[in-house]
Each structure stands twice: as C-alpha cells, then as structure tokens.
C-alpha cells in the first residue's frame, strides 16, 4: 500500500509539473497551449535517448528541459503574431506532428514499438522501495522549485507584465511596454516544465511509446487547470490532485463494478474529461477555488 501511494505520488508530481507549466501559459498569460503533451513527449524521448546513449542523468534531464524549451521557441514567436484561437490550433497540430515524427523516425525512436530499458534514477538503491521514495522526493523538489519560480515571476515586474498581457494587451502597449519578449520567454518556460515532467516520466516507467503521448494527455492537464482555477498556483495543485484521484479512482472502480471492460472504462474516462470541460466552462469558469480575472 505504501508502495502504491508512492507510485501515485510520482504520477501526481509529473502531472503537476505539466499543469504548472500550462498555468503559466494560459492562467497567467492567456496563451492557449493545446500541445502540452508535445513538449512532454520531447522531454521524455530526449532524456531517454540521452540516457540510453550513456549520458549522465543530469545531462539527460537538462537535455530534456532544453529541448522542450527550444521546441517552444518558434511557437512562442508565432504566439506574438497570432490571435489566440490560431495559437490553439497551431499548438494542437504541433503535438500531433511530434507524435508522427516519433512514430516515423524508427532509427531513432523505434517507432510504435517504443523505447525500452530506459535507465532508472537511483538505480544503486535497488528497484522499488527506497529508490522510488528518493524519486518521489526529487519530483517533489522539482515541483517546489517550479512553484517558487512561478511565484517569483508573478510577484516581479515581469510577472505583473505577463498578467497585464493576459488582461489587456492593448493597454499595455499604450503604456509603452512591449509584451513580445515576455510572451516568448513565458511560453518557453512553461514548455520546459512539461519537458522536465517528460524526463521524470521516461525514467520512472523505463518504457515509452508514442501511444502514451496522445492529445488526451494535454486535455487531462487542461481539466486539472480548469478545475483548480486558471491563474492560481494552489488551484493548479488542487486540480492536479483531483485529476490523479480521478484517473486512479477509475481504475479501482472497475474492481467494484463488474462487467466493465478496460476499453469501456477508457470510454468512461474520456466522457468524464469531456463533461468536466463542458460543465466547468458553463457553470464554474473560475474553477473550484479561484478567480480568473481579478
């Protein structure tokens, strides 16, 4: 049971990093990123490939963060010119293309077969037990660091600027501020969080396939952010908690409700995500806890 809780904690930490990143994009800056899973995938594959090639773990993780941030650069630059709905479509397309590339470039990624045997972190502590606990600790630290970074950014003049970008970009321009550079940097930072989450994911599961990086993952993260309330750090944390409880709970539900196949359960999960997105948009746009526009 303890081992199970640790496993859930690790998954929670991975999703929370992605939600914090998305929150930076949408919640604080108003940029619609429908491609968070693309940065997640880039992080996972970069870190896995580097580690498999014999690079030290620190290098693999740093590579994941860097690759995700760099992949976000052209999209961030596009975000400057595009109306937000176009950015939404462009990022959604981006994440689908990342998956197509992973499927196609078999020489590098082994395509649909997936990458196996990805080295674990803390391998010297053995498998399970203490190694998992140490991993959980590291993910918790990463989340703490992410929260501190976001808080620092939000409280800084830079943070007031990005929130002003969200609330009224025209007024900001009128004041002589140029939001361009800020938007790009925020976009890259949020993507970097997803890249880091991807690295944690790859070295935890030790086996990744393109099937794990479908758009549904992006919208799991959106669901977490919207439920918690976009634009608030505690909201992102609470929303992710609800999301993981829901994802894990739906696995248990199957043990209690006989006659529901795994495929049907997947449909029910999809239905729940869809309904959550619809109902929260209709009745509780500020999320369970927060206010979007203060």
């Amino acid at each position: 049971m303890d081992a199970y809780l640790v496993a859930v904690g690790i998954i929670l930490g991975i999703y929370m990093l992605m939600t914090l990143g998305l929150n930076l994009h949408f919640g604080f800056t108003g940029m619609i990123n429908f491609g968070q899973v693309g940065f997640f995938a880039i992080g996972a594959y970069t870190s896995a490939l580097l580690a498999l090639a014999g690079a030290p773990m620190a290098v693999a993780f740093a590579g994941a963060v860097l690759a995700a941030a760099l992949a976000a650069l052209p999209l961030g630059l596009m975000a400057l010119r595009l109306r937000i709905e176009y950015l939404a479509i462009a990022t959604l397309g981006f994440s689908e293309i990342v998956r197509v590339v992973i499927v196609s470039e078999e020489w590098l990624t082994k395509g649909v077969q997936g990458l196996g045997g990805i080295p674990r972190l803390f391998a010297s502590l053995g498998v399970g037990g203490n190694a998992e606990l140490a991993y959980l600790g590291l993910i918790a630290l990463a989340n703490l660091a992410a929260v501190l970074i976001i808080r620092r950014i939000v409280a800084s003049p830079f943070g007031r600027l990005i929130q002003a970008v969200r609330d009224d970009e025209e007024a900001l321009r009128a004041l002589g501020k140029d939001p361009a550079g800020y938007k790009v940097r925020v976009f890259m930072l949020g993507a970097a969080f997803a890249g880091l989450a991807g690295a944690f994911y790859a070295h935890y599961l030790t086996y990744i396939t393109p099937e794990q990086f479908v758009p549904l993952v992006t919208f799991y993260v959106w669901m977490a952010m919207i439920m918690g309330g976009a634009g608030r750090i505690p909201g992102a944390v609470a929303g992710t908690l609800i999301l993981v409880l829901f994802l894990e709970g739906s696995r248990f539900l199957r043990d209690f409700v006989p006659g529901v196949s795994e495929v049907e359960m997947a449909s029910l999960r999809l239905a729940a995500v869809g309904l959550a997105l619809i109902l929260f948009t209709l009745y509780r746009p500020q999320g369970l806890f927060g206010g979007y526009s203060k």
Partner: protein
Amino acid sequence: MTLVYYVNLAMNGLLQGLVIALVALAINLVFAVGRFPNAATGDYITVGGYAGIGLQALGVGSPVLQGLGAMLASMAVAIAGYLLVFRRLFGRSMVAALIASIGIAFFVRSVLSFFVGHDPYVFKIPITRAIVVGGVRLIPTDLWLGAAALVCLSIALALLFFTPLGRQMRAVADNPELARASGIRARRVMLTLWVLVGAVCGVAGIVLGIRTVVAPEMGWDVLLPGFAAAILGGVGSPAGAVLAGVVLGIAQEISTPFVGFTYKIALSFVVLMVVLVVRPQGLFGTLERVR
C-alpha cells in the same frame, strides 16, 4: 507512365480533398458566424459515419438513405451542442466556446466508443471495376462519392449566397451588432447555421466512411487538415475554404511518394504554419480587425 501515376494520385487526392473541403466548410461557417474554432466538428462527422453503419445494420442498403440518415444524426448532435452548450456561452470569451467544443468532442466520441467499441466498421458496397481511361483509373464508387460531396458543397454554398437565410447568416458573420440592429433574428440564424453544419458533417461522415472505415477516431483525424484548409482559404470565405480543402487533399496525395505515408499528414500542419506566419487572413479572407 510517371505522369499517369501522378494523375492517379491527384484523382485520389481530389476525393480526399472534397472530404477536407466539407470539414473546412463546417469549421469555417462556425468560425465566421459563431466566432470560435469548433473542435467538435470532427466528432459530428464520426456521428454521421456511425449513423450510416447503423442504418446498414438495420437493413437499409441504399447509400442515399444512409447518407440522409447520417445528415439527420449529425444535425441532431450539432443542434444539441448549440442548444445545450454554445447558446449558453453567448457573450462569453471565444476561449470558453473553444474549450467547451473540445469537451463536446471528447464526450461524443466516448459515447460512441462506449456503445459500439473501437473495432472499425465498413460499408458493404459492391466492389466495382475501375474504368481505365488512358491509364488513369476511375473507380465508379469514388466518382459517386465525389459527386455526392460536390453536390453537398454546391447546395451549401448556394444556400449561403442565394437565399435570404444565407444572406442573414453572412450578415451576422460580418457584423453581429449591425445585423441585429437591422432586425435579423440571431437565434434563427444560429439554428440554421447548426443545421447546415450538421448536414455538411453528415455528408462528410458518410463519404469518408464509405471511402475508408468507420471508427471513433475518423473525425478527429480529419480535424487538423480541416482547420488548415479553413485557415488557408480564409476565415469568412466559405468558397475559399472549399477550394483550399481540395488543394490540400491533392497536395497531400501527390506528396506521398516524396515524404512517405506517415508524413503526408504532417503536410497540412506545415501548410497551416506557413499560412499563419505569412498570411494569417488566408488566401481569400479579409483581415479581421482585432477586437
């Protein structure tokens, strides 16, 4: 020989392009009149495909009747989506409608996959011998499907440009406040919009279903090419979206020998990116002022 090969690819692409044109038209109409990108478009199409399969299972063999059933089913879902969700989001931000449309997309797909599973279904259409004209293979089924898509596109465009309702719809798209001030009833226009969108999606579903297979992801898979064509054609220009869809379909097929089967899907994304950077208003759209 090579020329014939490319002509054959182009013919294939033309049919695929007509399907993309239907998707793009459905997206474009909502984009222009409802003012949000409707991510549920693909799943309205899937509903149409399954409705056709359902009729086939009930013993209705005529593709025309199956097509009508598909249109009715897609219309019903589109109108339900409007009445239950989008109507209530009127006056809210575009982001709200966009996220809700994603929610509808997932919900519709989950209901379908829950009840009918993930196994693909096929339409039992008798296999016809291709007519070969100078090396160019014309498959009668494909010709019928292409004709059906063309008729649907023509009727939709004719409705938009030659009827009072179409004119009202374009007026709302152009300037909602002015349209309202001149006595156009917004609610009726919106209902007409969703009926039209549903009908177009239904036809797309049946054509796509007969051409390939009917599966829960079929609509989602044509959503991205549809968005690319809608933006390439220009938001607010339905005819441009149709033309762009056809061009994109042909370009996708002709690119296959060069980039391979998997990367042809990426082509629509590349087109999307280039258009967004170079000419965000599309080929035929007018630059909309940012409000």
